[in-house]
C-alpha cells in the first residue's frame, strides 16, 4: 500500500527546514472517502452503457473535499507565476494579467451563454467579437480577422491553409516550399510539415537579419511563401524587412508574419502596412490573456484584402445595419472561398476574447503604444546592464527581448545552471537553449510590466551568478537549493516516459 500522508524526506539538508513532499491525489485516496453526497434521485433510472464500455477497475481517487482542497492548495504554493514574481521567459511575453480582465470575463452575460444560442439572444457577445475583430484589424493593418484559432500554432496552421488555398484558387499548383529563417519558432516548420509542404531554412546574417543572398537564391515559382517573426527571436527588428518582403512577393510567394513578438510593435508599426499578407496574434501574449499553465491561448489570424475571402467560417459580421439609436444586428457570415471551420464554435470566447477586449479597451490607442515603448525600453535597459558580464552575440539595439550567452570562458557553467540558480534568487529563468543559433542561449523578455527596481534586482542576480560561476561553480551547477525540489533529472524524465496518472500494473511491483 502506498503511503497516504505527506512524508518528510530523509535527505533534507537542514533539519530545521523539513521538506514536505506532496503525494499524488491517487496516493492520498482511501477507499470509501467521499467529497460529495448526491441527493435521492427524482428521475427514472436508465440503463448503463453496454458492459464492454464500462471500466469498473478505474482507480479513481476517493477523498473528502478538504483533502482535495488542501492537495491543490499545496501544489499551487509550489508554483511560480506572474502574480508571484518576475517571469522573463523570452518569446512568451509573460506580462502581468490585469485583474479587471477576470471581472469582465465573469460577467453573467458572457459567462452563462452557450455558443449554440440563437444570435438574437447573444448580441452583446457578438458585438464584442465584432469590435475585437475591428480593433485587431486596426492594430495590425489587416483587412480581415478570424477569432477561431485556439492558440498560436493553430493560428499558424490556419494561416498556411489560407496561403495554400490562395495559390490553388489561382491554379498555381507548383508551390510546395515554405521559407523559414533559422531563428524561427519551432512551431513554424511544424505547421508547414503538417501541411505536407517542404521547409527551406534561410540562414541569418551577422547582424541577425534574414540573409538576403540566401533568400534570393531560394525564391522561385515553387515558393508558397515565407514565415517570418519580426522582431525575430533574437529580439531584433529585421533591418531589411522591406527588401525581404519584396523578394518573396517578387517570386509570387506570400508573407506570413508570426505575431509572437507583436508586443514590440503595438501602435508603432503595422505588419499589414509593411506588406505582410497573413499574421496570427497571440492574445495570450500581447493582450494579457493568462497562459503558461493558466491557458488556454487564443490565436486569431489577420489577413490582407486579397485573402479575406479565404478566412475560416464563420466570422462575426453585421447582418442588418443599425439606424439612429438602433444598434446593428450581428451574426455569423461565411467568406466566399472559405477554407472551412478550424474549431468547434467560435474561438476561446470567455477565456481569451473577453479578456483581450478588456485589455485593449482599458489601454486605448495611446496606452497600446506605451506598452510597446516600455517593453522595448525595459529590454534595452537590461541588455545594457548585462552587456559587460554576459556575451551578447547579436549586440545592437533590441526590441522587446534580447539573447545572451549563458557561458563563460574557462568555466563549465552552462545556461541551464544559470537558469536553475536564478530560481534561488526567486526569479523565473529566461527561455534557454532557444533560439538555436546562439550558444547556450538565455532569451530574456522583461515585458513592459516591470519597474526599474525589479529589473535592477534581476540584473544584480545575474551579475552575482556570473561571479559565483567563477568562485563557486559547484554552487551554481547544483542549483536550485531553495526550491521545494532540487534539480530534476530531465534526461530520465524524457527517456523513461510514464504518462499515466497511476502506475500501470506492469510497473507497480518495481
Amino acid at each position, binding site marked *: 500500500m502506498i503511503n497516504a500522508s505527506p512524508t518528510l524526506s530523509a535527505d533534507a539538508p537542514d533539519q530545521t527546514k523539513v521538506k514536505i513532499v506532496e503525494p499524488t491525489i491517487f496516493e492520498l485516496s482511501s477507499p470509501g472517502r467521499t467529497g460529495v453526497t448526491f441527493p435521492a434521485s427524482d428521475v427514472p433510472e436508465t440503463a448503463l452503457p453496454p458492459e464492454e464500455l464500462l471500466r469498473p477497475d478505474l482507480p479513481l481517487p476517493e477523498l473528502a473535499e478538504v483533502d482535495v482542497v488542501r492537495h491543490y492548495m499545496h501544489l499551487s504554493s509550489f508554483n511560480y507565476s506572474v502574480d508571484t514574481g518576475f517571469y522573463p521567459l523570452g518569446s512568451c511575453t509573460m506580462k502581468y494579467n490585469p485583474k479587471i480582465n477576470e471581472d469582465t470575463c465573469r460577467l453573467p452575460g458572457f459567462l452563462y451563454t452557450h455558443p449554440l444560442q440563437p444570435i438574437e439572444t447573444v448580441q452583446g457577445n457578438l458585438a464584442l467579437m465584432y469590435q475585437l475583430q475591428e480593433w485587431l484589424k486596426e492594430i495590425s493593418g489587416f483587412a480581415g480577422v478570424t477569432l477561431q484559432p485556439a492558440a498560436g500554432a493553430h493560428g499558424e496552421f490556419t494561416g498556411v491553409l489560407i496561403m495554400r488555398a490562395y495559390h490553388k484558387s489561382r491554379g498555381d499548383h507548383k508551390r510546395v516550399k515554405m521559407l523559414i529563417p533559422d531563428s524561427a519558432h519551432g512551431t513554424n516548420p511544424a505547421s508547414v510539415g503538417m501541411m505536407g509542404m517542404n521547409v527551406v531554412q534561410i540562414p541569418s546574417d551577422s547582424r541577425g537579419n534574414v540573409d538576403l543572398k540566401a533568400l534570393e537564391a531560394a525564391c522561385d515559382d515553387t515558393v508558397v511563401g515565407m514565415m517570418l517573426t519580426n522582431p525575430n527571436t533574437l529580439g531584433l527588428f529585421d533591418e531589411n524587412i522591406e527588401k525581404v518582403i519584396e523578394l518573396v512577393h517578387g517570386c509570387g510567394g506570400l508573407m506570413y508574419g508570426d505575431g509572437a513578438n507583436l508586443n514590440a510593435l503595438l501602435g508603432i508599426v503595422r505588419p499589414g502596412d509593411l506588406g505582410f499578407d497573413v499574421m496570427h496574434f497571440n492574445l495570450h501574449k500581447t493582450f494579457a490573456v493568462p497562459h503558461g499553465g493558466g491557458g488556454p491561448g487564443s490565436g486569431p489570424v489577420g489577413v490582407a484584402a486579397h485573402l479575406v475571402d479565404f478566412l475560416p467560417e464563420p466570422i462575426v459580421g453585421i447582418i442588418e445595419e443599425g439606424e439612429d439609436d438602433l444598434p446593428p444586428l450581428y451574426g455569423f457570415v461565411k467568406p466566399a472561398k472559405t477554407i472551412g471551420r478550424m474549431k468547434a464554435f467560435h474561438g476561446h470566447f470567455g477565456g481569451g476574447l473577453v479578456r483581450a477586449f478588456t485589455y485593449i479597451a482599458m489601454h486605448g490607442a495611446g496606452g497600446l503604444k506605451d506598452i510597446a515603448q516600455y517593453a522595448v525600453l525595459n529590454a534595452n535597459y537590461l541588455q545594457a546592464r548585462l552587456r559587460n558580464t554576459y556575451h551578447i552575440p547579436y549586440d545592437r539595439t533590441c526590441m522587446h527581448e534580447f539573447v545572451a550567452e549563458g557561458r563563460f570562458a574557462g568555466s563549465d557553467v552552462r545556461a541551464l545552471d544559470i537558469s536553475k540558480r536564478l530560481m534561488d534568487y526567486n526569479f523565473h529563468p529566461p527561455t534557454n*537553449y*532557444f533560439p*538555436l543559433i546562439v*550558444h547556450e542561449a538565455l532569451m530574456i523578455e522583461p515585458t513592459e510590466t516591470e519597474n526599474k527596481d525589479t529589473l535592477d534586482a534581476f540584473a544584480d542576480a545575474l551579475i552575482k551568478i556570473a561571479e559565483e560561476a567563477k568562485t563557486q561553480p559547484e554552487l551554481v551547477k547544483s542549483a536550485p537549493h531553495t526550491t521545494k525540489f532540487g534539480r530534476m533529472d*530531465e534526461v530520465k524524465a*524524457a*527517456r523513461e516516459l510514464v504518462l499515466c496518472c497511476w502506475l500501470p500494473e506492469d510497473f507497480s511491483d518495481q
Partner: protein
Amino acid sequence: MNVPSHLKYTKSDEWFDPATGKAGISDYAQGQLSDIVFVEILVEEGETIEAGKPIASVESVKASAQVYSPASGKVAAVNKALPDKPELINSDPYGEAWMIQLEGGTAGDVMDAAAYEKYCAERAH
C-alpha cells in the same frame, strides 16, 4: 572533440564512412545537443536516397534536430537497435550509433576531418 580522420563530414554535422557506407552524427553534434532522449530513423532498407534527404530525427533535453543523409545511395541497413538506446549517440557516435548504411554510397557535399575540425572551432565563437 573526437574527429576520426578516416570519415567525411557535412556542414550539418553528419559523418559518412566511404569504406563501409555507414552514416551518423558527429561527436560535435552530440555534444551540442547534450543528452539525446529520442531518435527515429526515417528511411527504410531498400530505399534509394539522395544526399541531403532527412534520414533521422533526434531529440535531446535541449533541442530536436533533423539528420540529413551525407551521401546518396541505396539503404542497405538501418540501425534498428538505436531507437531503443538513443544514449548510444552520446557515448559512441561513430560506432554503435551509426544510423544507416548505404550500398554504393556516393558522398554529397562533404569535407575531410581537418576541414571539419576547423569548421567546428569557428562555430564555437
